[in-house]
């Protein structure tokens, strides 16, 4: 069974069976759970933000009179039974974990930034959508909501599912080269800023299988650097 929005709502309404409750709680506490986070498009974000803010303001307004009526003495911890406190603490803990995870997920998924200032070693990172190996003196920024990758240096990307990216070598300016590429799950792709005497700041993007078409010296260097 999958944890759905309906199931979570059922959980919050206290209508879940013990089995369903256990499943939701395990899901909420599981850091490793595969989640497909689809970030809203940049254009929709403002509308979404405004809508959330409006909802919040309405909530605050409706809450205000009640707030003023609550006196310090009437809100005594002692007056609440212990079991209710325990449930509340557990609920706060679960909700807190959920919100923390969601926040983490959103920030990792929306924009991924990595810099490698080492002179010799690669920086390897595994994300939910891809693994990245960043060569020395390189950096990369991936906006997962737009599929834009800006990089400078050399990077190897291995996507965990089929995915389309628009790749731009930021240090390849001024003529801002961009290339749209459909990356297949499980394949190694290499993006490289390259200088040749005839074409400075060239951007090379290729699937690992095409490495052999590069100048032999470059091919061998990339194979050594990315251990492929």
């Amino acid at each position: 069974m999958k944890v759905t929005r309906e199931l979570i709502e059922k959980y919050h309404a206290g209508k879940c069976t013990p089995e369903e409750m256990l499943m939701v709680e395990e899901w909420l506490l599981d850091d490793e759970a595969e989640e497909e986070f689809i970030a809203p498009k940049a254009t929709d974000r403002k509308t979404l933000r405004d809508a959330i803010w409006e909802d919040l303001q309405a909530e605050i307004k409706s809450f205000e009179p009640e707030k003023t009526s609550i006196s310090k003495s009437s809100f005594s911890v002692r007056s609440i039974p212990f079991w209710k406190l325990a449930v509340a603490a557990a609920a706060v803990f679960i909700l807190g974990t959920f919100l923390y995870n969601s926040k983490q997920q959103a920030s990792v998924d929306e924009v991924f930034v990595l810099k490698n200032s080492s002179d010799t070693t690669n920086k390897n990172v595994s994300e939910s959508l891809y693994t990245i190996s960043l060569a020395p003196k390189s950096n990369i920024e991936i906006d997962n909501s737009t599929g834009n990758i800006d990089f400078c240096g050399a990077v190897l990307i291995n996507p965990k599912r089929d995915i389309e990216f628009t790749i731009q070598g930021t240090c390849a300016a001024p003529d801002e080269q961009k290339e749209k590429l459909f990356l297949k799950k499980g394949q190694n792709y290499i993006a490289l800023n390259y200088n040749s005497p005839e074409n400075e700041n060239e951007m090379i993007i290729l699937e690992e299988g095409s490495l052999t078409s590069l100048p032999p010296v470059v091919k061998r260097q990339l194979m050594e650097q990315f251990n492929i």
Partner: protein
Amino acid sequence: MTPRTILLLSLSFLFFSIVGCKQSNHEDASSKKYSIYAGLKNGQDFLVTTDTIDSGIIDPEKQGVLADPQRIFHDLIVRDGHYYRLDQRTGMFSESTISDGLFKENKSVKIEGFNDIENYNWISKDTLMLIGYEEKSKKARYAKINVQHMSVVQNELPIPRPFGNYNWMSIGFSKFFDNKLFVGYCYHSTTNLHSYTTSDTLYTEVISYPEMKSVNRLKDTRTTYPGGINSAMESFFTDESGDFYFLACPGIATGNVPEKSTGILRIKKADNQIDPDYFFNISASPIQNHGYGLWYLGKGRAIVRTERKGVFTGVNDHWKVPHFDYYVLDLIKQTTRRLELPLDKGTRKQCVLVENGIAHIAINSDKEGSAVWIYNPENESLKKGLQLAGEINYFLRLERLN
């Protein structure tokens, strides 16, 4: 009999029919005369063998076998029905054949400290000399392999390791003259993957054989990056009189010093020296471009494969865009004549096979399809021969298998 049993039996029958059919198609594949390697648009590489390349149509996907592993088109050494290659990741040297509809490995041997072939030479029918530069130890090495027994003798090649600002080297040709081995090489400086340059001197080491001791070092500064990886593409040959010619390739696909000229140099058999009076400057000829492949036609004529400036933008699309021309050269008069062929694609290809003075050229054109073109230098005729059917992206190798 239940419907499920009937379905299962029918499927089994269908499966064995297909397998049986495929096997009968391939049962004598390794005894055919020619081998073809094609890269398909779906990304898969196939090998197919045939007895004729002068006419007809062949479908590598339907009539051939899947290359296993894939993308080995620059690595193959083909002889007597066998395919030899070195796995760059594992250092395993293997022999494979096409049998039962599969590209099957027969035997292999690990060559320690050797993970790239830059040049090979057959010393005898069963003995192969491999030469390569090993980056980790910064040494040029050779390995002599008896392919019957898969026994290996290997050692460092007596040529100077990269020195000064140089941190890499390339070995571009190897040629046995009597009891000597001539090895052409150059050095490189590389910077953080982003660029590299090549020494402005090309070197040729003269090594006594079988002692493998350096006896002389020849230098030339007229151009650089001698030869190339000869399992990927040919760039040197010996003519009828025993004189040795090699192409030096400073273009962006190899030497990366395009201000130098692509040119042909010669080592006369009698002199054991790079002929100071001979230099066929390809870049300064009417070709006006860099080139990377060279094949001997006989009678002082050769074919050179050259890039065409302005059609490609750089290294990023050098192999993807059809921009390669073929020119017939007169090596003595130093004249050039373009062959009226569609522009070819693929930076390095084993694409010219000369038999009895007739050239067979493997062309893959996005517009005119993939085919063998036959050029007869006697009457200068050019016609289309065997055509490849299917969704072909690259026609990467055409060679004698037996």
